[in-house]
Each structure stands twice: as structure tokens, then as C-alpha cells.
């Protein structure tokens, strides 16, 4: 037997929330990017759970695209991290603060 769709959804919500929390408390850009991955992973899980629930594979397609897009986003994000933090003592997002007001 399997868990009801609500159970899966709760799991996905918890994982997304943890990702969000990571973005709220961590200042290391690498870990922030990973937290974004967590949020997206939670979203993908919700799609897959619903796909099974409603019985069509649109949700699988969605989860797949989310995966692709997340990978692309991480690639660009990491490129920016390298450009910003190469040669810095600490890797801390609070240190880049030229733009404000």
C-alpha cells in the first residue's frame, strides 16, 4: 500500500520549507543555492505526487522540466559565485553590499 497524496504533499511542503529556512538563515552563497535546490525539489515532489493522484503524466513532465531548469540555474549561480567570491577571505553574502538604498 502507499501513502495518500496528502502525506506526500506534507513531505514536499516540509522539504520546501526547510529550503526556505536555509535561505533565511544562511549567508554562504553555495548553501543558499543548495537551499534553492531543496525548494525546487519539494515542488517537483508535489507534482509527481499529484501526477499519480490524478492519473496523468503532465506532472512528470513538469518535474522533469523543473529539474532541467534548476540545473541550468545552479550552473549560472555557481558561475556568479566564482566571479564574486574568487580570492575572498570569507564567502559570505553579507559581504557584497555595494548596492543598497
Amino acid at each position: 500500500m502507499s501513502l495518500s497524496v496528502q502525506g506526500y504533499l506534507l513531505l514536499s511542503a516540509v522539504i520546501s520549507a526547510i529550503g526556505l529556512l536555509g535561505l533565511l538563515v544562511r549567508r554562504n552563497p553555495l548553501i543558499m543555492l543548495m537551499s534553492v535546490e531543496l525548494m525546487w525539489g519539494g515542488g517537483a515532489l508535489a507534482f509527481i505526487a499529484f501526477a499519480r493522484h490524478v492519473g496523468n503524466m503532465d506532472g512528470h513532465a513538469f518535474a522533469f522540466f523543473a529539474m532541467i531548469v534548476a540545473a541550468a540555474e545552479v550552473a549560472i549561480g555557481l558561475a556568479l559565485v566564482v566571479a564574486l567570491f574568487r580570492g575572498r577571505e570569507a564567502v559570505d553574502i553579507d559581504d557584497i553590499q555595494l548596492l543598497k538604498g
Partner: protein
Amino acid sequence: MPEVDVSFQVIARALTLVVAAVLVLIVDLILPSRLVRRPVAWISALGIGLAGWYTYSLWVQVTPAGAGPVWNVTAADVSTAWTAFLGAISADGLGLAFGGIILAAALAGVAMSVRRREDDVSGYYSLLLLAAAGMMLLAAGTSLLTIFVSLELLSLALYVLVGFRRRDPRGKEGAFKYLILGSVASGILLYGFALLYGSVGSVWLSDFQAYWYAHGAHGMTPLYRAGLALTVVGFAFKMAVVPFHAWAPDAYQGAPASISGFMAVGTKAASLAALIRLLSVALPAAELGAVVWPLTVLAALSMFVGSILATVQSNMKRLMAYSSIAHAGYLLMALPGLSQQGIAAAAFYSLAYLFMTVGAFAIIVWLGDAPESGSEMARYESLFYRRPYLAGALTLFLLALAGTPATAGFVGKVLLVRNAMEFGGWLLVAALAVTTGISAYAYLRVVLVMIRRPAAAQVVEGAAWHEAAAAEDPDQGEEEARELGTPWPLAVVVIVAAAATIYLGLFPQGAIAALSSLLPV
């Protein structure tokens, strides 16, 4: 297995942009790098022009003169004749009208970029074209998948473009912040889409209508509500609506001004079109209030935060960013009632915003675009005496943004106010009134800077700054700009934008009539 209906006609306007983007990359491989600059700019411009032609030819077919849009005749026409790929994308007035605005912004973006001296021009233009393609698809997408993927296409391209400025840490900083916050918003949007998909059981927008036919008021389940809320937040983020706006000032300030201008107009237009499309199919009129009320509050907040913060800025791009936040609030005034008239108002205001904003950014480029706060204003000091026409044009754009009569901005505001009043949006009208005054002050500060004659000390300081800037970064600075001469495309952008701002202010009826029935029925 369903037969895929490939329709070149429907996707041509986006396809052309993609082809142009790929061509740009190929040309870069073939030609030696010192010869690349001109051909890629021309390819980009021609690609956008061709896309414009396809948009126009579709527009003529979709909205035959006098007969009104096709779907007013038979609703079936919309779903069969003018969609493609099993309904993943459509060609309706909404997507075409906003698509036209996006293309114009992209063309202006190309024209504003011809003076850029960085390497990687091909990367720059191809990303600009791909971002424009993403915006076009977002405005026309009729499945949640198309909407999501094209939103990401434009976002990713813009993240890179914002960080394009070489050796300027501000660009990278703005880009990274934009990327992180954008990913958060996309994650929220993704979750919202998941909940909508789970409620409806499909990603096709046409099935959403079927869902409401089947369920009536019972369709408004908690799951559906939550999905709707998260989705709205996702689009509000892209439009830079308060409190999802914090990325905009950093991204606009860090980005090259040509990109800031392009994304201010394009992203807003595309997201607004998608939001309108979604709300018009995903909610029956009776339930609209549930979404519109929180959006109304956010719109009012945007107007206040945008205009108040614009008053304390000392960097033009940042000021324009806060202005764009306020304008996001104005555009949302079209949503109460979600009527043809309201959408026409939003489309007209987007068109007006296109010319006012692109014109202002073109002048920022003209004067040598700079990311610093504070010293950047020295460029505008006593501009009226050095370059009266340029100063006059900038004054016109700023006055139009403030909503001065006889400019496009005023007509747009009248249309929006009328819509809001008709549907009880008194909060919005009041907020618009107060913030118009505040923002007038913010814009006029710039005008005053341009009128003021500099004291001797300031001249020296400004000159020293120019020298320092020229020494530090030869790509930038007004000295350099003068040395390079003014490229004619930039002048064309300013002249066309100024002419259109006045023309739409004096003779808006043609545009209003053309935009009067965009709402997909």
C-alpha cells in the same frame, strides 16, 4: 498518440528570435572578433524586425479591422485555429499586443547597446534575443508548462545579462541577488503550479475552464486557493510588486542601462500578460475578488514604496527601478473587474511605459551609464546648458512618467483610474493620487539638477570624476562616449520615444481602440 499540430505561423515570432540568437553565435565563430560587432547587431535587429512582422501579420488576421477579434465571433476559433502544439501556445490579441511591446523594447535594447565595447558581444545579443523569446512565449503560453519554462528562459538570460558588465562587481552582485531571489520566487511559483495542477488535473489552461464548468463555486478548494496565491506571488515578483520587489533596484543599478530598460518594460509586460491570461481562465468572475483584493493592497504598497524611495535616490538607474516598482502598482490597477476596458488600460499603459522608460534609459546610456550612487548625478548637473535637447527629452520622459497631461502617461493614468473607479478600487485611486504627487517630486529633482548651474567647485569635481572614471574603466564615462560619437540608433530611440510619448498623449484613440478587446473569452 495525439497528432502534434505544428504551426509555424503561431510560433514564428518567437522562433525568429531564437534563430537570430543562434545565428549570432555562429557568426561569432566564423568572423574574427574585431569584425563581429556590426553584423551581430544587424542580425539581432533584423531578427526582431522579422518577429515584429510576423506579430503584425498575425495581429491583422486575429483582429480584422472593424470585425473585432475572431474569438468574439466564435469561441471555437480561438482553441482550434490560433493555437499550436496541442494548445501549448496561442496567438491571441493579448499575447500579440504585449508581444509587440516586448519586441519594441528588445529592439530598443539592441539599439542602446551598439556602443558597448565589451567582448562577448555575441553572447550579449544572443542572450538578449533569447530573453525576448522567453518573454514572447510567456505572454502567449497557454499551458502551465509553457508559462513556467518560458518564464525561466527569460529569467536565466536576464540573470546573466544583469551581471554582464565586465570588472564591475556591482553587476555581478545585482545578478546574484536577482538569481537567488528569482529562484525563491520560481520555487514558490512551481509549488503554486503544482497545487493548481493537482486540483484541476491538467496543465492546459483550456482544462481550467472545463474545471470551473464542472465544479462551479465548489472549485474554490483550499488547495486551489493556495495554488492561486503562490502563483500570483510568482508573477508579482517578476513585475517587481512590493514586497517582492527588493531585487529590482539592485538588478537595475548593476545591469547595463540598455538591459535595465529592456527588462523593465519586457518582463513587466510579459508577466502582466501571463497573469491576466491565467486569472481570466483560472477564476470565474465571481471568485475574482479573492485574488484581486490582496493584489490591490500590494499595488497600493508598490506605489507608495516605489515613489517614496525614488525621492532619495542618487543614481538614475536606481531611481528608474523604484519608478518601475511604482508603475507595477499602477499596472495592477487594471485587474479589478478584469474587463476588456481594464485590460485595454493596462496594455495602453504598458505601451506608454515602453516609450517613457526606454527613452529615459536611452538618455542614461547616452550620458555614459554608470552604476555608482551619488557621483553619478554629476552627469546631469546643468545638462540644460550643455545639451539642451537631451535635457529637454529627458524632462519630457520624466514628466510623462509623473503623469503630466498631454503625454502618454497621463492618458494611461486616466484609463486606469477609470477602470479602478468602475470596479470600486478607491484605495487604488487614492494611492495613485498621493503617489503621483510624491513621484512628481522625485522626477523633478532630476529636472532641477539639470537646470541648476553648477558652482565652480562642482564642475571640477565632476570633471575629476570623469577622468577617474575614464582611467578606471575605459568602456564607460561621458568623455569616452563623446569620443565615440553618438551612434545614430541611440538618437533614433530617443526621437521615436519622445514622439510616441507626445503622440499617444495627444491622439491616443487609435491605440486605445486597437487594444480594446484583448481579453481571451
